């Protein structure tokens, strides 16, 4: 009211809506909160889904994913798959490790494993299992993976040669088994799979890079798992592979003798795995002729695979024994063999054209016959040899097979010759000499027996003497004397007893000792009361003490 009265001009105050500085606080908070949440969620790495058979030792939120022991993620969740046949682990990768999830990347669980070949993952006993990630080679991003149940033997990033071996039988060769070259370990079997369509076993093997040049096209692989016992002319030979190979199996490779080395191989080359060294050695045999033989005798003990030899030199093998190759109405047994005519051509002189070697040989009298390879087993083999005075014949053809004429092996003349030879050998034996020697040996034995009898007589005499000695009176008296001695001993022991003289003496001595002790006690008492009595004697005895004058 006063303002109106004085009519003073009045300043009108407009309150401008001004933002207070306090609003900085929520702004800051929003930025910080937004930043934190964004960093946590957007800053997280991608998710990978890894499928395993079981979630054994995998724990959600705990199990880490590592690549060469560097943490790159963590398992966030483990779920059963929709078909309930496997588990799917959700792996949250750490930021900046997205590039690890690409095609070819492999996952497996690292946990303690003990196998014949190795013990691994011991560190995980304490710190728990983890998932190992091995990045693939490509750059194609993938987020779904199938985890490996078994860790790969070698990481795919390790340089080296990766080959495939094909085998009829898995044997004891398994994942992790060593591959040897001349007894030196140069690689490992990575994986063993059964190829169902071909019904064969496939081994994926890895040869370390430094040894990869040892493998070439001509290389043969064979199994070395077992103990090999061979019986030869020089006795039995037992060869064992290394202890590890015995436990976990193993394969050896080398170029067989006589084989050519061939060009080096690339990754993924396929080789045959032979069951043993022998079959590997045989594998270099390249037959160029398939031949049909008609035998007019039993072919029992002749089995497919039996050798075909020319004067002991292996030429080939028996392939098949079957009547299907026989022309109708022919009762002879057809045997299909395959041979390498090169070897034959080298063995026979004056043959210039190796391709015609076989025909030329047959013209000269080459015949096939069955011979016994072993007296023990009775196994037969096909023996090709020139038969002198054979009926002239030519190499004929039935279908795709050539036919070599055969010779019956069990002819009477041959038998006769053999018997004659045996008889001659028996005749040549030094029988007389041997018999003479037997005679002298018998003489010597009779002399020895006589000597022996003398010795026995002497022994008898000695025994009689001993008996006499025992029967003598002095020997008998010995016992009486012994008895007397024992009596004396007993009496002296008695004197020590309670009634014995010794006891009385002892009692007396003890009494005296007691008296002495008593007087000693009196002495010690008086010393205790008056120690000076030792010097001055007891009061009232000895010299009177002079007294000072008053």
């Amino acid at each position, binding site marked *: 009211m006063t303002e109106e009265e004085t009519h003073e001009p009045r300043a009108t105050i407009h309150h401008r809506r001004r933002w207070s500085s*306090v609003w900085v*606080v929520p702004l800051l*908070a929003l930025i*910080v909160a937004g930043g934190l*949440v964004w960093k*946590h969620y957007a800053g997280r790495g991608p998710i990978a889904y890894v499928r395993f058979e079981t979630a054994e030792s995998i*724990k959600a939120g*705990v199990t*880490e994913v590592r690549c060469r022991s560097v943490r790159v993620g963590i398992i966030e969740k483990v779920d059963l798959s929709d078909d309930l046949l496997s588990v799917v682990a959700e792996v949250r990768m750490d930021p900046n490790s997205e590039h690890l999830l690409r095609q070819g990347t492999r996952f497996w669980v690292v946990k303690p494993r003990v196998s014949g070949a190795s013990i691994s993952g011991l560190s995980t006993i304490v710190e728990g299992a983890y998932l190992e990630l091995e990045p693939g080679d490509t750059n194609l991003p993938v987020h779904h993976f199938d985890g490996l149940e078994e860790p790969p033997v070698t990481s795919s990033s390790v340089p080296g040669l990766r080959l495939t071996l094909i085998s009829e039988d898995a044997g004891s060769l398994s994942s992790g088994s060593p591959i040897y070259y001349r007894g030196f370990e140069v690689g490992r079997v990575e994986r063993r799979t059964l190829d169902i369509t071909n019904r064969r076993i496939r081994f994926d093997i890895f040869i370390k890079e430094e040894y990869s040049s040892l493998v070439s096209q001509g290389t043969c692989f064979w199994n070395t798992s077992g103990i090999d016992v061979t019986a030869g002319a020089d006795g039995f030979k037992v060869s064992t592979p290394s202890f590890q190979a015995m436990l976990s199996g193993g394969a050896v490779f080398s170029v067989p003798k006589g084989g050519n080395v061939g060009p080096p191989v690339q990754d993924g080359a396929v080789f045959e795995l032979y069951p043993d060294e022998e079959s590997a050695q045989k594998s270099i045999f390249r037959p160029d002729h398939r031949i049909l033989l008609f035998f007019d005798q039993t072919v029992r003990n002749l089995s497919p695979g039996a050798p075909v030899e020319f004067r002991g030199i292996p030429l080939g093998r028996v392939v098949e024994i079957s009547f299907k190759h026989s022309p109708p109405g022919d009762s002879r047994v057809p045997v299909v063999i395959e041979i390498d005519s090169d070897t034959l051509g080298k063995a026979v002189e004056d043959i210039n054209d190796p391709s015609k070697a076989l025909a030329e040989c047959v013209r000269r009298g080459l015949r096939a016959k069955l011979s016994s390879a072993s007296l023990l087993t009775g196994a037969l083999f096909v023996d090709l040899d020139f038969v002198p005075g054979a009926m002239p014949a030519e190499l004929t053809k039935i279908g795709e097979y050539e036919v070599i004429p055969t010779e019956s092996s069990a002819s009477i003349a041959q038998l006769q010759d053999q018997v004659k030879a045996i008889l001659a050998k028996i005749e040549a034996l030094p029988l007389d000499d041997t018999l003479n020697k037997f005679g002298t040996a018998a003489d010597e034995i009779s002399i020895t027996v006589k000597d022996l009898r003398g010795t026995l007589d002497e022994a008898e005499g000695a025994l009689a003497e001993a008996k006499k000695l025992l029967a003598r009176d002095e020997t008998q008296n010995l016992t009486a004397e012994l008895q007397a001695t024992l009596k004396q001993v007993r009496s002296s022991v008695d004197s020590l007893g309670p009634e014995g003289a010794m006891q009385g003496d002892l009692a007396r001595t003890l009494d005296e000792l007691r008296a002495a002790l008593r007087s000693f006690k009196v002495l010690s008492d008086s010393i205790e009361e008056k120690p000076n009595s030792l010097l001055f004697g007891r009061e009232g005895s000895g010299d009177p003490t002079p007294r000072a004058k008053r």
Partner: protein
Amino acid sequence: MEIRSAAAEGLASCHLCGKVSPVDLGHCPRCQSPLHLRKPHSLERTWCFLISSIALYFPANLLPIMSVSGIGGASHDTIMSGVLNFWKKGDFLVAIIIFSASILIPVLKMIALCWLCFAAAGKTHTSPKNLTRLYHITELVGRWSMVDVFVVAILVALVQVGALSSVLPGPAILSFAAVVILTMFAAMSFDPRLLWDQHVGRDLSDTP
């Protein structure tokens, strides 16, 4: 009954020493501190702190609050996952305590403050007496929410057994502490007299 407030009479209570003096003086005659009828920008500040605390409440609950690493790997727990863990293990009491102290109370506090701010701005018609009671409860309860932060701090200090086991604070614990502090600030900056002013104002407007 007519309610008359000191502010209507132009009297202000000193923020520092509490002396009541006419607001025209500008400064308290006793301690020379500036005089205001009400806390200046009270609602605005309360809103600011409230919004900040709400914003930080999200990271506090979404991020791990504590990571326990020990034999067999590490585990990261948010507040809610910790509560759920305790509940699953059958420690219902502990679960309820943590849930109420760490989740329920902060939320209720923030709701209460919002309500108070709206009421102070005259948007609701709740009895000012109840609102004031609510305000006091909010202020009283506020500091107890720090229990979580202390638990983590103590665990981190105590459980350091090297490779065997160790506890590390997570990023959420700072947010959580900030939430608690900011709600306390919000409660402090709120002037409960504003609640009454609405009614005083109405009554005053009614009086001639």
